[in-house]
């Protein structure tokens, strides 16, 4: 989240799309209710289902899953054409005034630079026009035809209320009613927040979808202000922290994993250290060398010196066009190219996409190691024939599955200390209450012992390039089970020689004198102690910051980009909800997201970006600098804007024999996969209380569709996609209305996800249905909005 849960109480309008906080983040939703109660805030809910969030809304609009970019684009057009945007904010804090080079265009579904043969874009026409100093040229009047502002206005002219209605399946009246409420927050003294979750991220156009929301919020002046923001309601207790600590192509702190052509640390740092695009851009990533060298010192300790590029060569290098994300990993595994998989608490068979493909893929491994609290579908994948014969008729019997499997009993959250990061970026420290049961071990001990065993084997016997392993710094007081407090101090960072914990990432150096596991966390465990364990109750601004409760990154700054909460003179747009303000000498309020004593005209508000201001036009993305409505890979209709380029031309689609795509001829209905309040993912089917509250899988069918098919509530139905099938009881409902999409009636079918073939309660795996289709920027699979058929069993 740019803002946070408690901050939602400061808003005037809550836009919930692609999420259902009343049901899936119930305690977080209480801040929406406080805003309604205390500020008469309005809740707008745009969702395929009339869910509990919708039931509490002031305005509900049903839409078709996968049509959100059209809706948000319509809101952008509404705000621009009626001049409801916050003009001063847009001029000061966004790249609206930046000029784009000649040749930029959009036509017939493609942006300029599309190479039909390579099936990719040449982005040269998506670049800013630069002056002789290398800065982007700007037009403060916003009238230049090649200004971002004019190009954006032109791009979204097509997104009229009538067009939105035709694509999304709502009415133009409902759309306009919601737009009036949402765009009322363009006034300086009105704020709007956006809450979203997987209904937005689980599409093959998801990153552009969120970009559209960011554009809308920027136009309305809702970024960097209390009560505003683009707020991702994340799904697991430490999914934020796990993201922060790195992925397949990121190092801790969002530095990039090096690439093969970056043959020296210098070459890597040259690419990693951007140049500013405006004279007033702080361009904070220019400090990347300090973060990278400090990380290398943490990884390689005394083996990281000036003389050896600080151990840079030990790190693996990826090929520039490689992709090792989830979808690619399991496709490779299915093709037989992987030997082993280690899983700490993840369940790929349940997670999908395409569970039948997951089961087959795991069967091609030589070995599988699973550290878990319970026996899951993944741990027992080799037994799928016995446990779920009817559901997986094609699965091998165990005698034909050669995978060696280790199921390691691991500790649960109550049995480990350490920090969890919530959606608000608050890093909350927890203590361990008990030991794990039986001989189950804490994860740090499993990792520690395995690491030491491997190092011992390599030191004794040699083998393939042992250096990266034997020179990895593991000098913990108890190496076989490192203390998490000790690791937390390492993550915070310190001056190596003194040794003194640093208080901020501003103290990190690139000369090898500091080490730091993750620069974002500098300040979390200082000389004053563990800031994450603080329990201060004070809220001096009354805005729900609670600055002494726990600690958040970066630098305990609760609202990101808070320089944007004030005008060009440092006066808050809304004094009643001030983020920071300039008192003549310094910025006061929240921890300022700029230099604390820099006068208002010194730096642009978005210090991490080369532009220094926020990007309405963003050339970074794969499929275009402006979001455009594309249909899901499986869609019931053609794209009304450009039928010949219906879905995202750059969506990654896998083509193994287990990955057929279906058409609306065979699969006419749109699948809505969702979560229930009483269950957490595929986990709580192992928990008595949760299983008692929601024991059985069910299929939500619109009344009209049920009538057509002669199905009543309670009847057993089968839901099929091109990949597989699930069976369960029908729940006939009025909550999911039929939609008129470009004149056609489209039905959507609701599918809660929480069951599997092991657990106290059992049911079908929903991911038997989902396709191996990925967003090209994030690699997130299209778990929602694919096509299914339904029949009575």
């Amino acid at each position: 989240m740019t803002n946070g849960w408690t901050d939602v109480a400061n808003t005037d309008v809550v836009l919930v799309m692609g999420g259902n906080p009343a049901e899936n983040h119930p305690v977080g939703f209480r801040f929406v209710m406080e805003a309604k109660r205390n500020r008469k805030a309005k809740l707008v809910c745009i969702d395929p289902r009339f869910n509990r969030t919708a039931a509490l809304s002031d305005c509900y609009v049903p839409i078709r899953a996968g049509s959100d970019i059209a809706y948000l684009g319509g809101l952008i057009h509404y705000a621009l054409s009626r001049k409801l945007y916050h003009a001063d904010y847009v001029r000061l804090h966004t790249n609206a005034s930046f000029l784009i080079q000649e040749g930029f265009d959009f036509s017939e579904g493609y942006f300029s630079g599309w190479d039909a043969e390579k099936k990719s874009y040449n982005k040269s026409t998506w670049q800013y026009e630069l002056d002789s100093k290398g800065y982007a040229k700007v037009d403060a009047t916003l009238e230049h035809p090649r200004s971002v502002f004019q190009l954006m206005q032109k791009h979204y002219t097509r997104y009229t209320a009538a067009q939105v209605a035709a694509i999304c399946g709502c009415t133009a009246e409902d759309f306009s009613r919601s737009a009036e409420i949402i765009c009322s927050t363009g006034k300086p003294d009105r704020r709007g927040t956006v809450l979203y979750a997987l209904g937005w991220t689980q599409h093959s156009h998801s990153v552009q979808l969120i970009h559209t929301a960011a554009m809308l919020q920027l136009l309305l002046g809702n970024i960097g202000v209390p009560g505003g923001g683009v707020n991702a309601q994340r799904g697991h207790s430490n999914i934020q922290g796990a993201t922060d600590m790195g992925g397949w192509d990121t190092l801790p702190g969002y530095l990039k994993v090096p690439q093969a052509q970056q043959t020296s640390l210098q070459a890597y740092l040259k690419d990693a250290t951007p140049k500013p695009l405006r004279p007033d851009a702080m361009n904070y990533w220019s400090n990347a060398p300090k973060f990278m060298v400090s990380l290398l010192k943490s990884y390689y300790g005394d083996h990281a010196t000036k003389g050896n590029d600080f151990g840079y060569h030990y790190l693996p290098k990826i090929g520039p066009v490689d992709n090792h994300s989830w979808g690619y990993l399991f496709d490779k595994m299915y093709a037989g190219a992987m030997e082993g998989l280690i899983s700490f608490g993840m369940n790929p068979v349940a997670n999908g996409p395409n569970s039948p493909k997951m089961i087959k893929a795991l069967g091609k491994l030589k070995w599988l190691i699973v550290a878990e609290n319970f026996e899951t579908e993944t741990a027992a994948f080799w037994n799928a024939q016995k446990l779920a014969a009817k559901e997986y008729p094609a699965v091998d019997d165990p005698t034909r599955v050669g995978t060696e499997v280790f199921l390691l009993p691991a500790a649960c959250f109550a049995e480990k200390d350490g920090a969890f990061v919530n959606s608000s970026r608050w890093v909350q420290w927890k203590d361990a209450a008990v030991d794990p049961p039986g001989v189950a071990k804490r994860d740090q001990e499993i990792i520690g012992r395995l690491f030491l065993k491997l190092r011992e084997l390599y030191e004794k016997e040699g083998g393939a390039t042992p250096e990266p392993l034997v020179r990895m710094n593991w000098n913990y007081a108890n190496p076989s089970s490192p203390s998490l407090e000790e690791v937390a101090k390492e993550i915070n960072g310190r001056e190596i020689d003194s040794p003194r914990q640093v208080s901020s990432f501003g103290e990190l150096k690139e000369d090898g004198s500091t080490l730091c596991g993750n620069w974002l966390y500098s300040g979390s465990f200082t000389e004053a102690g563990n800031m994450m364990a603080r329990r201060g109750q004070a809220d001096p601004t009354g805005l729900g910051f609670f600055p002494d409760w726990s600690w958040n990154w970066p630098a305990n700054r609760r609202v990101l980009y808070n320089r944007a909460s004030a005008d060009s003179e440092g006066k808050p747009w809304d004094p009643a909800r001030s983020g920071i303000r300039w008192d003549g000498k310094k910025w006061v309020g929240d921890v300022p997201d700029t230099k604390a004593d820099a006068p208002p005209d010194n730096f642009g508000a978005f210090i991490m970006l080369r532009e220094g201001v926020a990007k309405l036009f963003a050339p970074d993305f794969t499929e275009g600098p402006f979001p455009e409505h594309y249909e899901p890979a499986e869609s019931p209709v053609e794209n009304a804007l450009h039928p010949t380029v219906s879905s995202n031309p750059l969506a990654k689609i896998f083509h193994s024999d287990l990955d057929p795509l279906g058409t609306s001829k065979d699969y006419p209905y749109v699948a809505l996969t969702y979560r229930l309040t009483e269950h957490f993912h595929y986990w709580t089917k192992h928990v008595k209380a949760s299983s008692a509250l929601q024991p059985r899988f069910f299929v939500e069918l619109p009344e009209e569709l049920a009538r057509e098919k002669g199905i009543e509530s309670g009847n057993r139905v089968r839901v099929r996609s091109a990949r597989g099938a699930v069976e369960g009881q029908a729940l006939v409902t009025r909550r999911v209305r039929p939609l008129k999409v470009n004149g056609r009636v489209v039905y959507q079918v609701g599918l809660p996800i929480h069951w599997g073939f092991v657990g106290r309660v059992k049911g079908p795996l929903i991911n038997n249905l989902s396709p191996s289709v990925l967003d090209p920027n994030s690699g997130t699979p299209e778990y929602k909005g694919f096509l299914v058929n339904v029949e009575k069993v």
Partner: protein
Amino acid sequence: MPSHLTRRMFLQTAGTLTAASGLDLQAATPPRELKIAHTTQTRSVCPYCAVGCSVVIHTLGDKARNVTPTVVHVEGDPESPINRGTLCSKGIGLKEFIVNDQRLTRPLYRAPGAAEWTPISWEDAFERMARLIKHTRDRGFETEDAEGRRVNRLANVGLIGGCTDTNEINFLLSKFRFGLGILSYENQARL
């Protein structure tokens, strides 16, 4: 009354006042002792949805000899500005996640082609797992790519997980991952 009154303090005070009031409670059924009257309280955070509700975990037996401490109750922490003592229907059932007869308590092994689990000791498991990982790494490790550039990478092993594990464990996983050179490093965040 202190200005910041916690629920616990209120209940303790109420108990004292009742006793001091002189009311004849012998005839009435005396209130049951709170099950948390003698517990150790540990501060933790719910492992589920990322709102980040703080919880208080109550254990009994920590102060006794020859007794394994057990969790007897989990409730919302009244001091958290996020949840102020409340929990949702998942969080309310946390005790039954922690104390659960389906919890794995000992390592299990499935041999190639086998139809069931067999128990294995940790010692044997670490030995065998390390052997397998090393063998796979020795076979698949690419020190230099086709163009002679040092790449130090391993493409045939995947490492996944960590979204309900703490930052510190995720950081240790990153060291484990880079020590081996693993390219396919993934977690729930992408899904």
